[in-house]
């Protein structure tokens, strides 16, 4: 099975036998791969009935839960890694959820689309319409993304919250890295990947 680029990246970070919680696990690809390859004790939360059905067909530990209702039911320090891919921008309280992720897990991995990408800037700044770039294909009236941010915004939040940025990867739309992106990430990256630790 070929994993989406960001998921392949996350897989590399996770130790064998680790305990992983995947927030907004979708169709369970990451967990299925972690279970098969790394004997991970993983759980995924999702609220979409279709996604849950697909997870069941893969034998993934999927739990029906809406992230916007919070994740207070999980105990402190219960996981090695809490993962949230491409969902930060769609939740009601991103800051609260990030705090919760680092309460439950030793570390967390967060990926999100970068709204600072030059296409976003060009479409709004030059053409005057809400950006609909390749990496954010929804229109303003039907987007689930209510809290879009740039990598700069995200890092500012991490600074305010004293989250430790252990690793950052910035990629283009096919989830590839390139020297030009590393040079000017907030302008060139379509997606950002952050591995965070608790305040030291």
């Amino acid at each position, binding site marked *: 099975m070929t994993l989406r680029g960001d998921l392949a990246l996350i897989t590399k970070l996770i130790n064998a036998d680790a*305990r992983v919680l995947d927030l907004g696990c979708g169709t369970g690809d990451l967990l299925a791969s972690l279970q098969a390859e790394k004997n991970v*004790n993983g759980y995924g939360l999702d609220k979409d*009935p279709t996604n*849950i*059905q697909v997870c*069941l067909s893969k*034998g993934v530990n999927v*739990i*029906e839960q809406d992230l916007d209702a919070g994740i207070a039911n999980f105990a402190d320090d*219960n996981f090695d890694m809490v993962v949230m891919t491409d969902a930060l921008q769609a939740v009601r309280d991103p800051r609260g959820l990030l705090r919760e992720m680092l309460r439950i897990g030793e570390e967390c991995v967060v990926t999100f689309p970068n709204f600072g990408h030059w296409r976003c800037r060009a479409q709004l700044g030059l053409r005057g319409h809400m950006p609909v770039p390749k990496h954010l294909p929804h229109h303003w009236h039907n987007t689930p993304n209510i809290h879009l941010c740039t990598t700069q915004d995200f890092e500012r939040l991490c600074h305010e919250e004293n989250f430790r940025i252990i690793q950052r990867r910035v990629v283009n739309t096919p989830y590839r890295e390139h020297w030009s992106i590393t040079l000017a990430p907030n302008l060139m990256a379509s997606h950002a990947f952050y591995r965070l630790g608790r305040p030291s």
Partner: protein
Amino acid sequence: MNSAAVSVGIVSPQRFHSVAPLTLQNGSVLDTYELVYETYGTLNTDKSNALLICHALSGHHHAAGLHQEDDAKPGWWDACIGPNKAIDTNAFFVVSVNNLGGCHGSTGPRSINPNTGKTYGPDFPHVVVKDWVNTQAALADHLGIDVFAAVVGGSLGGMQALQWSIDYPDRLRACVAIASAAKLSAQNIAFNEIARQAISSDQDFNEGRYFEEEKNPDRGLGLARMIGHVTYLSADGMGTKFGREVKSGDFDAGYDVEFQVESYLNYQGRAFTQYFDANTYLLMTKALDHFDPARETKGDLVSAFQKATCKYLVLSFSTDWRFSAARSQEIVDALVRAKKNVASAVIESEHGHDSFLLPIERYTNALKTFLDQLLIMQKGESE
């Protein structure tokens, strides 16, 4: 499609007579007992496809198919058990048993106490979920089943499935608890107590010895069923089904108006007294109230699950307020903390607690997918 194509067809109950003395949790001993059960499907050669069905408060062994061609209704879970259904009898060998203390053929209050030669009645010992699990395990021994592929139950049946995973961790690969709870809430116990009071305050109850006078506490038992029935439905579900529709009478003619919902409940209450025993109802509701596997681990449900090795599926329904989704979430949270494999879903349905008996598409799909996946994995492991 004719009904035979989607049903297990004609089935016959079988009997298991245990001659090994059974010590119950309360210390009393039954020297012998009988369990009546049915099976659907075929046990495979390595006996790896057995699936146990645990029934709820008013359930019994007849879960699927018909006893006779002209039966008005099939078994109580025919919506879910049959060829290609959620519990696929082409794949699984399904065992469905009437619990000890029941009133459908297994030893219970209506049986003769061999020591006295008289009907047990109210003297039948108090049984709890653990006792049922022990007797079901004895039946499994009798059938040559070492390990169940899954133990499945709704409501009180889900409690038995959970207890199985704790008491016999090596004897099941999966536990499915549907519309269940790790223990009853105060509100839930309260409803059971009202039902019990309805029965025991019936003037024909005679302290449980109604049969000696050839009477039956029909009014009390019927009332208990009516109370239960209301709590198994949701307000919206009742609204959709009955609204304020009038069955008979006329508002202009005075008070003599019977609403459809009244007629329905009265019918349900009356019908129940024809096939259910009042002493069994008292016994079953007490077993429900007392269930709490965490009692043995000082109230810590996470520790209670520690020894379990099976996978879990926990299903609940959006409008079930008797066994709400929050109760199922408590089970899930404890299982996650205990590092057990668990999947859960909250099924949208307007039918309240009764949903678990109905062919709701998302529900049956989820159940079928989980169970089918077990066999796929099993096959993968043995290759």
